[in-house]
């Protein structure tokens, strides 16, 4: 709860009933959190364009710091004392100030407390300063603003509401803006919103045509008017406003004209926009604002057990885009005329290579070209196939010197066109009604007659062209299911292609089937009539059009299929399999499409082709409930156990599934599956899922993501990991740990998590132990002093116990201790389960340690007591006092406790030696010096002369040998017994490591390891044998279809294609671009 993002209203919503009411309700509730929008009447903000003085809104500078100069002290103190431990010590300190209450003086708690407060204060200041510097970097980024009739380069924080801002390609937008005009035809522009919603395809924004022409300085000077729009809120896709320009009728503007801070301009030379929301009022930062508020209160208290939690992660929630995948598509393989092409060797590039080669297409099978050129029987098909790839798409070519760049809102299409280009089929020019391709220096121009648009319903897109030879032809690419339905009886290679598709799908490649059909003139003309009618309809036009498309998309002849690789980050499959072996359950939560998510699950080996997949896609609560109930019923006894199943659910269904009534059932079902994929999720839903698991399962959750849309879950999970990747820094800034790539999770969890857990466990147990040992002695002493409260030790000796004499051993345990080497931990991921299950640290272990401490303190008190009871122990018959006994005991305590640390240490290094022997020596030194303090310093008169008497007493040395030995020999003994009788995997591996002749024993360990493995996970070998009756379960071979394309945008695909004339643009564009630059600078 502590780290809920977006969930400003979460606290009151904890009951989760509200959650299940779905986004709307939650969002509504959130709305009320904002004072800006507290009244139900929508307030209107009026923005005067290019007239900053009239606009009085917040500045565009952001600050994510926790403290200011003035708020530091009160806030810091408040935060510190809201920790139970600090509050406790404050209370003790206050009590100690009352004279006579404390037997150990007034300052013995106060001073250490002050030291601790000072140290953590410095840490806070340093961290806050880092945040301040990060903000400063953001605030001082530059952008161009039109002021005083010319363009000025200013810093982001100087941007005001009403400013006219120009942003160039690949730049991030400095504030929320209304698009006025852009370099592209029809004032379109592309933005990457991955940062906000995690979607891979670019979004198209288009300015209102009334203002689209405003490009030149002269026009901007005369741009005079105002924008009326709603007060800022935090909903990304909601915006209503009206643009009033002098001398023009009001123009309404909506989300399609809105450019948000945090998005990145792509494939567009430049845009001009008017700033409407700045700083914390931008849609992006408003959330963020709340994050930090939440962070303030909880992050501090959480940090202490965070490292330890890394070692116990049971559920891993991973984002897909940018986390598992690189978000780059590569044309990898294809099947043409029943022959499979593509490189079959495994690609195990490392990360760097990956990045540099990302833009390249991976297809490198020379056989394809050989077959094409050598007149293989299939060469005609190859030609047709590649031609189709070049023609049937919505990509815009852009000449850049001798090279051609492709702009596409669909990364799949870009990959295909690039792939074709590499094979010699170069798409060169697009005019509104034609496409020109170059094949082997020959130019072919295809006339584009119609574009039958893609939609996720249709799962295909077709294009009707007139070939250079004058034939009418329909090219289609789409999902195997829809294409196969429409194949002609004469179609060849159907079986082979299907087999190949299966191979592709199992590898997790995104497949598209490629088919064509020839049309006759009359057939086409008839259809065209229908099409025109459908286009003219005003209601349900899209539906009517789709019906119309159906008529002509038939009798396809199959050419083959393409396979596109949604590139995984380096070593993702390996990492996932290791993590699975470590008994970590992996859930993929993505905003992307279902098909894509399933594909990735295959490609990263999260699910195999034999894994039955349960699809939960329901459009009503009842349907969702029914499906969940059915599946739970089918699982029967296996419910709640881990099965080799995959659960796939979409955001819409999840909304129902999270309703209170079926939430638990859904969770049971999900926990019974080895892999869970949640698709099309809003950031809020991601957080909700994590919250659900966190609440109902007593297990540590970890969320990993890289985009702003992952911040919610990152903050919600116990451990949040941010990938500092392409999608920006929000995730990293809000995470507990940030890593560069998913694969580092393996090391983070298995090595550092395990080590840290081991260390923290040891450190905590040891700290408890040493304190119990010392302070219980006070209890034993009460038995002989009439329960009067007299302390047997000197005040400062007690106070310095944790500060000096026994401070180093827990530190070395906590910093340097290693249960086993990094190599072993990575080699045997099963070791992780030892820690995950909490065997190392639980109530039992804790009490055993406490009882052990009790026994030690018993020995440490009563042995010296019995030794000194006789009183005649010194030469010359001198008698002693209570502090003499105290010093005996204290010395023995320090020795015992330090040696106990040695017994606990499995990995000795020079610091361990320093800590253990140094601590003992430090006490002796302190004791020596301290005995001479009085009367030079007015402390410790009782200590005067103790050192001589104690050290010259033979009893002291006799006890020095005996007492610690007696205490520790039992620990040693039990440890030996345990190591002989009840040896776990950890002990085996430890022994293996310490032996030189490890080869002999290796097989034995391996046996052990296998049993541990079978305990943890046993999937890949056994197929699932559950009989599912519900039709939501897909047992068939996987389909690899996935395609991402902008849908339902302002600009339809047809409009987009018709808008560009790259033949004409070439020259004008270059000149225009240079003039743009001169305008700015």
């Amino acid at each position, binding site marked *: 709860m502590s780290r809920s993002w977006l969930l400003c209203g979460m606290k009151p919503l904890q009951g989760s009933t509200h959650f299940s009411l779905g986004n709307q309700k939650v969002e509504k509730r959130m709305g009320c959190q904002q004072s800006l929008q507290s009244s139900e009447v929508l307030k209107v903000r009026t923005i005067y364009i290019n007239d900053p003085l009239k606009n009085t809104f917040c500045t565009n500078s952001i600050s994510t710091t926790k403290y200011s100069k003035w708020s530091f002290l009160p806030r810091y103190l408040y935060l510190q004392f809201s920790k139970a431990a600090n509050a406790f010590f404050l209370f003790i300190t206050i009590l100690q100030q009352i004279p006579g209450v404390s*037997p150990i003086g007034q300052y013995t708690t106060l001073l250490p407390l002050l030291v601790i407060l000072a140290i953590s204060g410095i840490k806070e200041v340093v961290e806050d300063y880092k945040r301040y510097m990060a903000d400063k*970097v*953001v605030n001082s*980024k530059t952008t161009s603003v039109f002021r005083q009739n010319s363009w000025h380069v200013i810093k982001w924080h100087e941007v005001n509401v009403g400013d006219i801002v120009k942003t160039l390609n690949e730049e*991030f937008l400095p504030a929320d803006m209304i698009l006025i005009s852009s370099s592209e035809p029809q004032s379109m522009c592309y933005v990457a919103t991955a940062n906000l919603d995690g979607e891979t395809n670019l979004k198209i924004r288009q300015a209102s045509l009334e203002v689209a022409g405003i490009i030149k300085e002269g026009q901007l000077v005369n741009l005079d008017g105002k924008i009326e729009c709603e007060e800022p809120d935090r909903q990304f896709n909601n915006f209503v406003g009206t643009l009033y320009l002098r001398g023009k009728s009001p123009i309404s503007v909506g989300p399609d004209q809105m450019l948000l801070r945090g998005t*990145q301009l792509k494939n567009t030379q430049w845009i001009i926009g008017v700033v409407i929301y700045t700083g914390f009022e931008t849609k992006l930062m408003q959330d963020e604002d709340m994050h930090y508020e939440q962070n303030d209160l909880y992050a501090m208290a959480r940090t202490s057990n965070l490292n330890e939690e890394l070692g116990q992660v049971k559920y891993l929630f991973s984002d897909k885009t940018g986390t598992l995948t690189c978000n780059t598509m590569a044309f990898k393989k294809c099947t043409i005329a029943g022959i499979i092409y593509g490189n079959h060797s495994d690609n195990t590039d490392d990360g760097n290579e990956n990045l540099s080669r990302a833009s390249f297409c991976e297809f490198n099978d020379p056989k394809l070209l050989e077959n094409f050129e050598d007149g293989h029987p299939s060469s005609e098909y190859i030609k047709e196939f590649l031609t189709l790839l070049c023609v049937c798409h919505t990509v815009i070519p852009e000449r850049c010197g001798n090279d051609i760049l492709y702009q596409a809102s669909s990364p799949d299409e870009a990959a295909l066109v690039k792939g074709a280009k590499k094979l010699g089929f170069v798409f060169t020019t697009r005019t509104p009604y034609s496409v020109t391709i170059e094949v082997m220096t020959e130019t072919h121009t295809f006339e584009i007659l119609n574009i039958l648009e893609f939609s996720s319903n249709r799962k295909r897109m077709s294009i009707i062209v007139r070939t250079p030879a004058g034939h009418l032809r329909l090219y289609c690419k789409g999902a195997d299911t829809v294409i196969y339905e429409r194949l002609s009886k004469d179609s060849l290679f159907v079986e082979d292609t299907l087999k190949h598709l299966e191979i592709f799908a199992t590898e997790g490649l995104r497949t598209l089937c490629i088919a064509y059909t020839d049309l006759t003139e009359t057939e086409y003309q008839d259809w065209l009539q229908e099409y025109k009618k459908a286009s003219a309809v005003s209601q349900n036009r899209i539906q009517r059009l789709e019906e119309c498309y159906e008529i002509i998309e038939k009798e396809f002849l199959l050419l083959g299929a393409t396979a596109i690789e949604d590139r995984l980050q380096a070593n993702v499959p390996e990492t996932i399999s290791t993590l699975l072996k470590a008994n970590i359950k992996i859930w993929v939560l993505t905003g992307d499409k279902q098909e894509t998510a399933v594909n990735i699950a295959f490609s990263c080996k999260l699910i195999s082709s034999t894994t039955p997949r349960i699809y939960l896609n329901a459009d009503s609560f009842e349907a969702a409930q029914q499906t969940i109930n059915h599946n739970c019923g089918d699982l029967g006894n296996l419910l709640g156990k881990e099965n080799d199943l995959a659960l796939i659910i979409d955001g819409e269904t999840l909304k129902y599934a999270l309703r209170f009534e079926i939430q638990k059932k859904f969770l049971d079902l999900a926990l019974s599956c080895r892999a869970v994929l949640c698709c099309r999720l809003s950031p809020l839903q991601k957080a909700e899922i994590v919250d659900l698991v966190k609440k109902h399962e007593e297990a540590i959750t970890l969320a990993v993501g890289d985009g702003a849309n992952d911040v919610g879950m990152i903050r919600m999970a116990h451990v949040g990991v941010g990938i500092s990747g392409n*999608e920006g*820094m929000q995730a990293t800034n809000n995470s507990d740990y940030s890593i560069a790539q998913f694969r580092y999770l393996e090391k983070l969890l298995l090595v550092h998590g395990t*080590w840290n857990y081991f260390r923290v466990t040891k450190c905590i147990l040891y700290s408890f132990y040493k304190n119990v040992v010392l302070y219980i002695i006070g209890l034993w002493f009460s038995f*002989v*002093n*009439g329960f*009067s409260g*007299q302390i047997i030790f000197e005040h400062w000796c007690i106070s310095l116990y944790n500060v000096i004499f026994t401070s180093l051993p827990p530190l070395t345990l906590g910093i*340097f201790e*290693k249960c086993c080497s990094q190599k072993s931990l990575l080699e045997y991921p099963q070791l992780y389960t030892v820690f995950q299950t909490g065997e190392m640290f639980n109530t039992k272990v804790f009490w055993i340690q406490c009882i052990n401490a009790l026994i030690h303190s018993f020995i440490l008190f009563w*042995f010296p*007591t*019995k*030794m000194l*009871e*006789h*009183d*005649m*122990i010194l*030469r*010359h*018959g*001198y*008698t*002693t*006092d*209570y502090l003499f*006994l105290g010093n005996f005991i204290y010395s023995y305590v320090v020795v015992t406790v330090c040696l106990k640390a040695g017994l606990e240490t499995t*990995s*000795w*290094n020079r610091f*361990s030696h320093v800590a253990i022997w140094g601590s003992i020596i430090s006490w002796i030194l302190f004791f020596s010096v301290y005995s001479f303090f*009085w*009367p030079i310093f007015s402390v410790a008169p009782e200590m*005067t*002369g103790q050192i*001589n*008497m104690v050290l010259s007493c*033979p*009893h002291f040395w*006799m006890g020095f*040998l*005996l007492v610690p*030995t007696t205490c520790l*020999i039992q620990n040693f*003994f039990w440890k*030996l*017994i345990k190591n*002989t*009788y009840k040896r776990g995997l950890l002990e085996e591996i430890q*022994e293996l*490591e*310490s*032996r030189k002749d490890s080869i002999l024993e290796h097989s034995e360990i391996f046996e052990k390891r296998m049993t541990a493995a079978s305990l943890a996970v046993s999937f890949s070998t056994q197929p699932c044998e559950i009989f599912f009756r519900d039709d939501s379960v897909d047992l068939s071979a996987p389909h690899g279809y996935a395609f991402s394309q902008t849908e339902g945008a302002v600009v339809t695909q047809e409009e987009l294609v018709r808008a560009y004339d790259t033949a004409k643009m070439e020259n004008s564009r270059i000149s225009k671009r240079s003039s743009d630059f001169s305008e700015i600078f």
Partner: protein
Amino acid sequence: MEKEFQHHLSRMPENSAIKQQKLPAHRLHFSNQAIFTIFFATGAFCFCIGIILLLSAWKVQEIEINYTNICEDCAKMRENALNFDKQCTCSIPFNLQKTMKGDVYMYYKLYGFYQNLYRYVLSRSHNQLMGKDVRDVKDCAPFKVTSNKIPIAPCGAIANSMFNDTIILSYIRSTSEHIQVPMLKTGLTWWTDKYVKFQNPSFRNLSDHFVGTEKPPYWQEPIYELDTSDPGNNGFLNDDFIVWMRTAAFPTFKKLYRRLYRVKYFSDGLPAGNYTFDISYNFPVTKFQGEKAVILSTLTWNGGSSIFLGLAYTVTGVFLWMSSFALMAIQGKMRKKKLSHRR
């Protein structure tokens, strides 16, 4: 979102062994043989030390005479505070069967007297005892000042409750020849007590320096008359006083009272024979169900006749031996199991 954010270089941790967690480390690993040897050897060592300690403790000669009941009359009398000015002596004859060779020490021992009580321990003024300021009675509650608001010297509960019995040992060589055994009343304290913690305001005219103070309510003489014969043993420097002021750890404790002055008949120690303790009984103990005793003892290098340490060593040694055999048995069993498992 911003490239500038990724200061990769500056964030790169230092490539040192500590920061990369690659410090050379080794694991303690003992073979079964080594563990067995360690246990066995430690056991043998402990056992030997134990026997040595026991033998040396048995060599010590010690006589303890509890005179709470023997001097019952005096005890009764002391229960009434009004009898404070009356003398009461009590003599206890005893027979020493064997000569106590070497240095002999005389202790008094109190039973049930909690010198380690929290408020009792605090109730003293270190500054006063150092002779810095005899009127400094800050920490001495509840014996800071008299009812007339005159500061008490030495103040505090410890000083006020000082043991004030006088014990005289006489050697009865024959029925007619009673020789008072020569005893030293100095050299009973830690060096630091006599020379650091306790100082008189001045040696000369000691009484002058205590003008303006009052003796503790339970005392019969003021501090400067504790030993008028020896100025080095008078005032705060009085050995009996200093010994008393070192507060004992247990409710039953001994304190060094006198040392044998080894001259004439006593040059070898206390010869066997008949002796008498003549005790002037001043210190009441029956009121708090306490008891008191007088002890004569010789000492060895390791102190008195306590056998605890010797016993503890012996028992630990035996236990370690047993453990080592147990370990051997367990390991043998496991090896057999492993072998049969493999077959």
